[in-house]
């Protein structure tokens, strides 16, 4: 492998590699489609899928669907973020809260929370409320766990230094504990966002209607395979953008953190 030494050239090299493998992926897809090993229904050719993608983009359907999905995802995510951080920090700092929530969180964490979807539908109907709440319910757990861990496991030497410098309990929380916990809290958010997107799409697939999940299920029911594939590409792109966005925010927010310096 070529040795690339200059950091900015290295970024360019990595991007080229990514693009290259993307191109290779689509080339492999197209080649397989053209060989007709699978029928056009099972594996539509790349141009057909892209044509469909373009068509839906131009007609506005795609953007509308993306918008709806993103709105639901974001609202659910924000609720999970706020609730999760508040709960996680409280669990770390208030023993009574910890006593109550510790078993609930550790039981809840490995459960497939998507199984609760019919319950949410029963309680909140088949419209946006149940989707958003389901998203919140599913994605709150990683936020709680990471916020809890980040707040609780602060380096004790840092704590002792702060105390010997005369900081009081209240200011300690805001000025020392929370900034120190921020990297881990943010990690929790980074884990929660993709979960939010996945769960929202599943909810949309189940309940139908508008949004990326609903559209893809409709296309499936109509055996419209180019449509299904087109939406998958769209969803993949949305997922990539969200994750990348979180990475950029993390770098800005945590510019002081040692991982940033190591880069």
């Amino acid at each position, binding site marked *: 492998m070529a*040795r690339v*030494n200059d*950091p900015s050239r290295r970024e360019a090299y990595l991007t080229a590699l990514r693009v290259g493998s993307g191109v290779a992926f689509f080339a492999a897809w197209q080649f397989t489609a053209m060989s007709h090993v699978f029928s056009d229904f099972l594996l539509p050719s790349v141009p057909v899928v892209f044509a469909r993608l373009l068509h839906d983009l131009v007609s506005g359907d795609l953007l509308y669907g993306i918008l709806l999905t993103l709105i639901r995802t974001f609202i659910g995510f924000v609720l999970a973020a706020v609730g999760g951080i508040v709960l996680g920090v409280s669990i770390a700092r208030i023993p009574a809260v910890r006593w109550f929530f510790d078993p609930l969180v550790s039981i809840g964490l490995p459960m497939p929370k998507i199984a609760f979807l019919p319950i949410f539908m029963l309680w909140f109907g088949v419209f946006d409320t149940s989707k958003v709440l389901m998203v919140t319910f599913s994605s709150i757990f990683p936020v709680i766990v990471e916020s809890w861990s980040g707040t609780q496991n602060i380096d004790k030497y840092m704590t002792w230094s702060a105390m010997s410098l005369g900081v009081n309990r209240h200011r300690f929380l805001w000025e020392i504990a929370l900034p120190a916990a921020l990297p881990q809290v943010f990690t929790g958010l980074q884990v929660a966002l993709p979960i939010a997107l996945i769960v929202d799409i599943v909810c949309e697939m189940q309940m139908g209607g508008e949004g990326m999940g609903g559209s893809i299920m409709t296309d499936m029911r109509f055996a419209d395979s180019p449509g299904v594939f087109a939406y998958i590409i769209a969803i993949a792109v949305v997922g990539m953008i969200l994750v990348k966005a979180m990475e950029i925010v993390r770098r800005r927010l945590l510019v002081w953190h040692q991982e940033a310096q190591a880069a």
Partner: protein
Amino acid sequence: MPGISFREVRHTYRPPRGKPVLALEGVSLEVQDREFLALLGPSGCGKSTLLYLLGGFIPVEQGEIAVGGKPVNGPSPDRGIVFQHFALFPWKTVRQNILYGLEKQGMPKAEREKRAQEFVELVHLKGFEDSYPSQLSGGMRQRVAIARTLAVEPEILLMDEPFGALDAQTRALMHEELLAIMRRAPKTVVFVTHDVREAVYLADRVAVMSARPGRIKEVVDTKFKSNAQGEALQQTSEFAAKVDHLWKLVRDEAIRAQGTQQ
């Protein structure tokens, strides 16, 4: 039994990020058969790199390293190595670690087990054969590492700051153990260290390396005429004079190394 010869060995370190750095520049050195040679020098002078080149873990790009007249070509159980951080297989017990090299030699099972047990006892770890490395102290782990390497009976023993991770008391005990083992079954040893006293105490000759890019600055004889052993030897004026001489050689290089560190 082969001697080792280094001729005009050069090595450039090419990190995945950043610029290439010349690590070794024209290193030439002869190691006699059954000699205990210490490679002494400041951090970053390339002494470990030289050892890894000798071990065959890094390919020699320029110059020549020959063992018994034949150029080095890849790792081999003839050149056993002991690392600073023990490099024990954490999922294997003490016994299983020591057995590993013996299994690779295709020895029959009964003989392997017997040989492994001999080496367990050689390093005074009887009773710990079924312990995992995570259950052992630093000194014990290093003894397992030494036993594992010695069990395959290499002709040459390479040691990369093997006692650097141990506390001072343990290190002193390990020195005695190593010397005792060497007296029982002498081998050619190339021992990398940055500790002057350790080098003077253990080695027959000490090769002092310069700061990066590393060259051999001077080779000093450290065999002692005195009959004293152990602590007594370390308190003789002969010993102190040698340490002082070497320390002065190393100190200049150490200062130079500090200056060039990023």
